[in-house]
């Protein structure tokens, strides 16, 4: 990172010697920070794309294939970026680089929760989220001591072979020695991820109104109220972020309540079976997912 031409300093000075040590320590930290910020940004982008994909579900027919695709994407994120983040953070205080990693992690949690809800209509717990972020990695030669060269990212092509996800063991452990590498997920990141996830539920509701699904909105409003209640019970946690997200959540719940209200009010005008007929004849609104 540093360049060849250097300004003149007296390298014999005690102070200079000391600061040279400080310099390398700070540089190492900043460099790692930069790498993590970049990885986190990538995780954010990929997670957003996964969410985007799940919003394309418009009925039972395309549901399965889209969920499968989303699962694939999530596994990709886990195996590549997140595992790399885990390596970078190995042996570090997990909170030292928290600010660098947190945005990506929260977005990932949002995506994985949304996937789980889309597939199984339930809230995925923190334990399960964490379980999916335990990687089995082969013990490299001379790695019994915890040394590792985290400054050079390993080749992009390889990781998929080398890694198995904790939660999805595809094959029995091979003869090579393995160890577990866990990416720490803080409860706060999880909870804030849940808050964002509520926003996606709101979009899912509006989308399902668009495709004439008259059940989902009412299911969603109940589930979201539950989340909101639980969240509210946590109280005004310190940190502006929490308060802000609680208020965004209130707005999301309110939007879904309004949507249900409109459905009920509109639906009241003609008998139900008529309504369904009428709805199926709407212009092709399958593309109308309002996700952003």
């Amino acid at each position, binding site marked *: 990172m540093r360049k060849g031409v250097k300004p003149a300093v007296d390298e014999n000075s005690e102070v200079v010697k000391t600061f040279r040590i400080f310099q390398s320590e700070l540089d190492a930290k900043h460099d790692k920070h930069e790498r993590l910020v970049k990885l986190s940004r990538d995780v954010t982008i990929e997670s957003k794309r996964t969410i985007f994909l799940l919003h394309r579900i418009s009925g039972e027919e395309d549901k399965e294939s889209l969920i499968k695709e989303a699962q694939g994407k999530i596994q990709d994120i886990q195996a590549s970026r997140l595992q790399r983040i885990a390596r970078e953070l190995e042996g570090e205080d997990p909170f030292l680089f928290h600010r660098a990693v947190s945005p990506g992690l929260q977005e990932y949690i949002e995506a994985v929760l949304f996937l789980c809800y889309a597939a199984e209509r339930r809230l995925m717990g923190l334990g399960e989220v964490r379980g999916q972020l335990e990687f089995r990695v082969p013990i490299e030669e001379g790695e019994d001591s915890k040394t590792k060269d985290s400054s050079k990212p390993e080749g992009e092509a390889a990781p998929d072979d080398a890694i198995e996800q904790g939660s999805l063991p595809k094959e029995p452990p091979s003869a090579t020695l393995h160890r577990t590498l866990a990416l720490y997920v803080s409860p706060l990141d999880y909870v804030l991820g849940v808050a964002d996830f509520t926003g996606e539920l709101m979009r899912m509701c509006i989308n399902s109104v668009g495709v004439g699904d008259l059940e989902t909105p*009412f299911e969603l409003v109940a589930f979201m*109220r539950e989340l909101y209640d639980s969240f509210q019970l946590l*109280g*005004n946690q310190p940190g502006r972020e929490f308060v802000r997200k609680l208020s965004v959540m209130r707005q999301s719940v309110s939007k879904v309540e309004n949507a*249900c*209200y409109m459905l009920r009010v509109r639906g*009241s*005008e003609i*008998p139900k079976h008529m309504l369904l007929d009428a709805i199926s004849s709407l212009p092709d609104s399958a593309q109308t997912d309002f996700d952003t």
Partner: protein
Amino acid sequence: MAEASLTASIFSEFNEYLTNDQDVREEIRVAVRAMEQTAREVMTTLEGIHQSAGLKEAPALCQKARKLLETTRSQFAELQKKVPADQYYRFHDHWRFVSQRLSFLAALIVYLEAERLVTREEVAHLMGVSVRKEDGFHLDLEDFLQGLLQLASELSRLAINSVTAGEYDRPVRISNFIQELNTGFRLLNLKNDSLRKRFDGLKYDIKKVEEVVYDISIRGLKPASAGGGEGGDEPPTSSTGAE
């Protein structure tokens, strides 16, 4: 030097005072935090009314909420002990928010139970405090009024959700109640403060409920009894009756 130590002794006396003051604040904060926790629990209980099946369970929810709310009596008693006599307003900011919140919750319970306005006495009684400033620890009037405005907001949400739950007469009754509240507030000579600001928001709550009533009216869902003596030509009620 002698003088310096004189200064020091004066200041160390001041310090005693200031340290004590900070301790009092710390204790108040702890007490208030407990009250906020109670308020949150009451709120979570009452949230149930917005669920589809919720309104039917309102009496049960209210009973549970009342019980929870009762714990604030001892909490207020505790708080009152911390606050030095005659210094209510010195520390008022600490419990202003929770007082408003509890006033709101009490008002909501009373409304759900009896569809009427809670009185200040009732709220004060529930909290175990006085209504009169002269008695030291009391329920501040402006806090109580803020609670009523929060009630209006919550009821406008309830109007929406009760339609979703298929209760078409409730919005009309809510609309009447909020109108009355509005009339009451209009009598007040409000300063240009946070209460006035919140009151300015009341008109949005009213408008929202009016739009709900509008939505059910135009679709002929408004029960004949609800609108009372209006005698307007109702939209084709037959179709609703056919549901």
